[in-house]
């Protein structure tokens, strides 16, 4: 709050100084102003910083990954509980996450920027705003291009424009490399990506609109979930049997699901993927966190789906 007054007060002081009689006769050296940063965030709020953020609290794991990736890791002073990548993040103090955020803890860290993401609620943003903190809400990207824009936005906020540009460049190159091998393909294997199968007769998979679906297709697969509705689509075992995927990717291996446990499910043993041992574990964070690791996810998926093309 105080920071927002600095600029206008300074400007006012300048004007007053400029109008004084002594200023008219002798040239007064114009003091250099801090380069302010003004951007509009995902909630249509205008956010102004007096300079690159030096004490950042990240409220989402995707934000944490982005900050480290563009070289702003040293400016982080706090994170949410679920931010586990990169491993350096573990040393940062936490401010909440699973069941709400602790505003006291955030305030006590004296941040000059709080970076929120689509996973955070507007109420939280409002609450922090009311406490006088500067909050920037990074909305969820729906395409890789939007993700690149988010990287550039965060770079502007933190003063790492060059690193971000280089990162975006290298990401684009890596994606192009995958595209080059995938696009000419005539056939794409049917793939089933499992998000959750607590009820093995009604598993959840990525549907249209999700990054998982986007990346599966980009990596040269035909996603069983593409024809369903909703980003997190529930399907029945019957549908899965009919689709008969050639490859099964276990996005829930972080929660303990293995190829062996899947084989034991009634009715699943008849699937081609199971019979041919094409069931693979996968780190879901690579396709669910809207940050630069989405490209890692793309490459990993491409390798699983077309091992012959990506050695």
């Amino acid at each position, binding site marked *: 709050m105080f920071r927002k007054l600095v600029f206008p007060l300074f400007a006012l002081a300048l004007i007053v100084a400029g109008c004084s009689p002594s200023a008219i006769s002798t040239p007064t050296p114009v003091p250099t102003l801090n380069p302010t940063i003004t951007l509009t965030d995902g909630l*249509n709020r205008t956010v102004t910083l007096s300079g690159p953020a030096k004490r950042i609290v990240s409220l989402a794991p995707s934000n944490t990954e982005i900050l480290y990736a563009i070289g702003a890791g040293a400016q982080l002073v706090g994170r949410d509980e679920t931010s586990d990548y990169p491993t350096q993040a573990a040393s940062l103090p936490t401010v*909440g996450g699973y069941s709400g955020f602790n505003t*006291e*803890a955030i*305030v*006590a860290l004296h941040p000059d920027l709080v970076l929120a993401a689509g996973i955070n609620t*507007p109420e939280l943003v*409002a*609450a922090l705003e*009311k406490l006088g903190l500067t909050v920037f809400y990074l909305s969820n990207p729906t395409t890789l291009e939007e993700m690149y824009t988010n990287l550039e936005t965060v770079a502007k906020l933190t003063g790492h424009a060059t690193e971000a540009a280089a990162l975006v460049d290298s990401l684009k190159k890596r994606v192009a490399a995958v595209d080059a091998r995938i696009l000419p393909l005539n056939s794409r294997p049917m793939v089933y990506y499992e998000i959750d199968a607590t009820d093995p007769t009604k598993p959840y998979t990525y549907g249209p609109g999700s990054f998982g679906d986007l990346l599966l297709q980009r990596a040269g697969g035909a996603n069983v979930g593409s024809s369903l509705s909703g980003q997190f689509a529930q399907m029945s075992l019957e549908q899965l049997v009919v689709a008969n995927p050639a490859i099964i990717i276990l996005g829930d291996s972080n929660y303990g699901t293995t190829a062996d446990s899947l084989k034991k499910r009634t009715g699943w043993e008849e699937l081609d993927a199971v019979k041919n041992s094409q069931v693979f574990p996968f780190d879901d964070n690579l396709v669910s966190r809207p940050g630069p690791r989405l490209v890692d996810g793309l490459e990993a998926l491409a390798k699983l789906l077309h091992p012959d093309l990506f050695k």
Partner: protein
Amino acid sequence: MSRRTLPYLWTLLFLALAVILSIAIGSVFIPPADLWRILTGSFSGAALPEPLKTFAFIITSIRLPRTVLVLLTGAALSGSGAAYQGLFRNPLADPYLIGVASGAGLGAVLAMSIQWPYSFWGLMAVPLASFVGALLTVFLVYALARVGKAVPKTNLILAGVAFSSFAGALTSFLMLRSTGELRRAISWLLGGASQAGWGPVLTILPYVVIGLGILLLSGHTLNLLQFGDDQAQQLGLPVSRRRALILMAASLATAAAVSFSGIIGFVGLIVPHVMRLWFGADYRRLVPLSIIAGAGALLVADVIARSVLSPQEIPLGIVTALVGAPFFLWVLRRAKNQGFW
């Protein structure tokens, strides 16, 4: 005379202690010496050095409004709980008996499924929808239960149960459909003081004050209702009218409390029972004592919710159930008089 004022002294003392705890405890540790300096300093108006300035800010901008919000919520839920128990002559009655909770939950989840613009009204959408949902439910249930001119108690309870099931099923269905908002909805339903600042307090204050004010004046009416509708009416009470008034007041206070704090259970059920066990069944005392003790009890629960797994916060509804149930069982075992109903 002191036998009559003693319960008030005890409960007010409890509330005062709870308020102090709520201000003194949080995820940021403020040493008692600093706390004292801040409190005395705020009266003398002297400027505080860092880090005391941050501590003072945390106390005035975060802990104090939250304390008052939780206090009002606990008061509203317990006062309404006592009124509902008296109104329905039912030991299982709580403020959510005729559907306030399910209506509020449905309203909130409906509002959460829409992307509101980030503005004052956009942020008020969820609390407003839950408030309206709560009151609409009470009106609907009341209308459904009506038989001619009278509204029999049993009908009210049955209609409330039926509507709660219906609304609850709708809410669950909506929650399953919108997986993106699922965690937010669950979080809200489990209860907790999520919003910051004085906004929520000022918003719910008039409704809580009006609702509880009416309930405080309704002690004699509630006493009479303990003899059954027939006898109460034969003693001169216009039963249907008074019941409608008390229901409306209790629902108003509960709906306001629930709109910002979510569904917090147990407080409205347990606190009146404990007050009844310790201080008797006269509703002229039971209602005010429940209000005071309920405010204190919820504050204690909130302190526990904030500090046990700090900086993580346990949803308030979970704490009230986890802590409230064993406490109540303990009180029950030690109760001397058995005929407390």
